[in-house]
């Protein structure tokens, strides 16, 4: 069992720690690692070794990733524990290498797996109910009902729900016009 981090959507900080929301994913083949970069203004009092560097942390497969410690030292290997440091972390990335081959896409297929859940919840009951009744008019109400269920259960964001309502409205209009012309 492996975990992956959704850096883009779920991140919070209290100026001391950075929290990520992570989900479990049943992928255990290959390597996964986290990279992030640290930047500090060059005219600051203390110059760290980690000035504009990339932290590369390899995650052991099969183990859950609990905490990531970043220890920043200056050029004399002093870490100013009680000092206030100006700088920021950026470019957080989770990289997954299946079968040891570096892919062109890193986090994107995992995002795709994450959206498959609402997509399946939307489409499968719709097709199942349509297979029973065989009426085109049943598609949009079922899709609408399932999208409302997905929205209230926080599976899809409001932007997605808005576009869905737009599409369903257009579809209802087209189907209504088809039925109006057939009469």
């Amino acid at each position, binding site marked *: 069992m492996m975990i992956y981090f959704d850096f883009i959507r779920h991140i919070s900080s209290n100026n001391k720690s950075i929290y990520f929301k992570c989900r479990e994913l049943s992928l255990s083949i290959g390597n996964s690692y986290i990279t992030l970069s640290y930047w500090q203004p060059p005219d600051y009092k203390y110059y760290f070794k980690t000035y504009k560097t990339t932290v590369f942390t390899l995650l052991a497969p099969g183990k859950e990733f609990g905490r990531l410690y970043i220890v920043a030292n200056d050029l004399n290997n002093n870490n100013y524990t009680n000092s206030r440091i100006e700088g920021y972390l950026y470019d957080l990335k989770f990289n997954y290498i299946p079968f040891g081959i570096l892919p*062109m*896409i890193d986090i994107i297929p995992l995002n795709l797996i994450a*959206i498959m859940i609402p997509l399946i919840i939307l*489409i499968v009951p719709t097709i199942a109910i349509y297979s029973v009744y065989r009426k085109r008019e049943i598609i949009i109400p079922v899709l609408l009902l399932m999208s409302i269920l997905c929205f209230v259960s926080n599976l899809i964001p409001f932007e997605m729900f808005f576009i869905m309502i737009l599409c369903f409205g257009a579809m209802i209009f*087209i189907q209504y016009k088809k039925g109006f012309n057939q009469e």
Partner: protein
Amino acid sequence: MITIDWILGISIMFGLALVMNFYISGSIKEFFIFLTFFNAFVVWSGLLPFWTLILNIIILCFIVYTEISSVNM
């Protein structure tokens, strides 16, 4: 620059829209509506940029406008 995620996103979007449209034996207008629906998912997953969704919504608005203008009550 077109990368592999573009190919992946466009295939998923068009594939799902074609399957759904074939399943309900819909017209080209219904196909475009399904295309917008699945494009929203693909944009949400980050495979395609946001302007593809804007383009799809513009096409959708044009389709709805032609439907409204050609309706005979």
